[in-house]
């Protein structure tokens, strides 16, 4: 039996990287087909930001101060624009992955020469690369119209972009690990909700962590959820180099840990695959 060189363990790294790059490109292309839908869905942000402006304008008025949690009203709203954009850009990976597991479709992916987890990661990047800019633009427009344009320094933007990338990466590996629980649990919908609501609350989507009572603040900061939402948003409205470096370190450490967790869950899951075959 002659085995092809491709099948050997030492494949060139370049062709492997190219493989995942192409997955991302095709995914982006495919997402662009629904651009109209994406824009339409982003209109939900108009409602959300509109309500938030009402709520916070009233609240700032009630407290009588110009600063809440170290933020002006304008920055508070821009903080929310970024958190909401991150949240609304998330494809429903948990449900998608668990559907894959339950329907047995994951089996077909197992028969392909790529890592299932990385395939979905790059596909996820492709999808998010379409949704996030659209959401940010829509949210940014309504915010600019209601409270004025973002007034933080533009120099910080590349750093914020990097933090957002790290944030959605953490979100992806967490979602993947949770979605793969479908190997053991019939329905992961509840986990999906709980995780999502963790992001909404202690992740900091609805309010910056500074508003929390002290104990809760400590808990939130110890968990990874704030790195997905609060971290990059706070960086946008309150940039400092120290803040950026601190965030990056925590994001990378958590990212690597969650990457490992997702792979371990996958490994155990794949071992006990039981596709209902006929």
């Amino acid at each position, binding site marked *: 039996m002659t085995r092809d060189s491709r099948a050997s363990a030492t494949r060139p790294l370049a062709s492997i990287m190219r493989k995942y790059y192409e997955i991302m490109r095709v995914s982006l292309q495919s997402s662009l087909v629904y651009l109209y839908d994406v824009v339409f869905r982003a209109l939900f942000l108009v409602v959300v930001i509109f309500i938030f402006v009402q709520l916070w304008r009233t609240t700032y008025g009630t407290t009588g101060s110009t600063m809440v949690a170290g933020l002006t009203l304008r920055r508070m709203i821009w903080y929310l624009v970024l958190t909401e954009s991150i949240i609304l850009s998330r494809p429903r990976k948990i449900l998608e992955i668990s559907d894959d597991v339950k329907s047995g479709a994951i089996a077909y992916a197992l028969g392909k020469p790529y890592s299932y987890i990385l395939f979905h990661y790059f596909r996820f990047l492709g999808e998010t690369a379409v949704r996030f800019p659209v959401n940010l633009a829509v949210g940014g427009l309504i915010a600019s119209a209601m409270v004025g344009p973002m007034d933080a320094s533009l120099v910080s933007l590349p750093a914020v972009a990097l933090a957002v990338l790290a944030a959605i990466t953490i979100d992806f590996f967490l979602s993947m690990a949770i979605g793969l629980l479908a190997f053991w649990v019939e329905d992961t*919908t*509840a986990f999906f909700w709980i995780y999502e*609501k963790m992001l909404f609350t202690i992740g900091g989507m609805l309010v910056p962590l500074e508003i929390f009572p002290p104990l809760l603040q400590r808990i939130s900061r110890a968990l990874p959820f704030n790195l997905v939402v609060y971290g990059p948003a706070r960086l946008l409205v309150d940039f400092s180099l120290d803040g950026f470096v601190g965030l990056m370190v925590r994001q990378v450490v958590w990212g690597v840990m969650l990457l490992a967790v997702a792979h371990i869950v996958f490994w155990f899951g794949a071992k006990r695959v039981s596709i209902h075959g006929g």
Partner: protein
Amino acid sequence: MSRRWYGRVWSNARFVVAHLALNLQAAMEYRASFISQIVGMMLNDAIWIFFWFVFFARFKVVKGWEFSDVIMLWAVLTVAYGIATGIFGNALRLSKIIAEGGLDFFLGLPRDVLLSVLVARLNISALGDLLFGLILFVFAGTLTLGGVALFFLVCILAGSVIVSWFVLVNSLAFFMGSSENLSMQMLNALLSFATYPFPIFSGPVRFLLFTLIPAAFIGYVPVMILKGANWWFILGLTAFAVGLGLFARFVFLWGLRRYESGNLVIVRV
């Protein structure tokens, strides 16, 4: 056929109950899913209460609304939503059903089309909402006979507004083809506006919430009734619920004449 009106009501009620029983039975087939959807939805709701807890811990009162008012608001909303989408589960998916020609089946039944399609599916997570709302009410509500009766009355009225609104916006599918996205936006808008204290909104927005997006009728008005039991509020809510119900039904039946049936090819994705 000259059956008395109450005969028809009785027959339809039995029809609804039969569906409910069957749907519940089917739902329990998937053990973990059943439980986790209910518990999941309760946690989901709880986390919003948590948000308001954090918010009011910091700001105490916002335009006369306190934490207890928001609890009452959530109690009404979750019970109303739970009743509405628990029994009429397909209200959430009606536009999809219309656009994909899914009404064919229901048109073949010897029953009212709208009722048949609405009750054909149970939204399991709605049971979680219902349970959650009841728990909130036990903690925050007036636990007298009159208090409980009034609570359920406003919840049923608010639930009826929710179902009617869902039917109304989903009926757009008759006129626009695939309106799923638009309908979903309208549903989200209604629920989003309803979950915030009404006084934070300014004049023109308040007008909007009593008319185009009637969020005030499912959140603000019921809470005001429970707080003060002003007869005008009760009368207004009842009138609106009945009016919107009739209007939604009229629009649905009107749209039904333009229904294009199931010429859609089911694609395999």
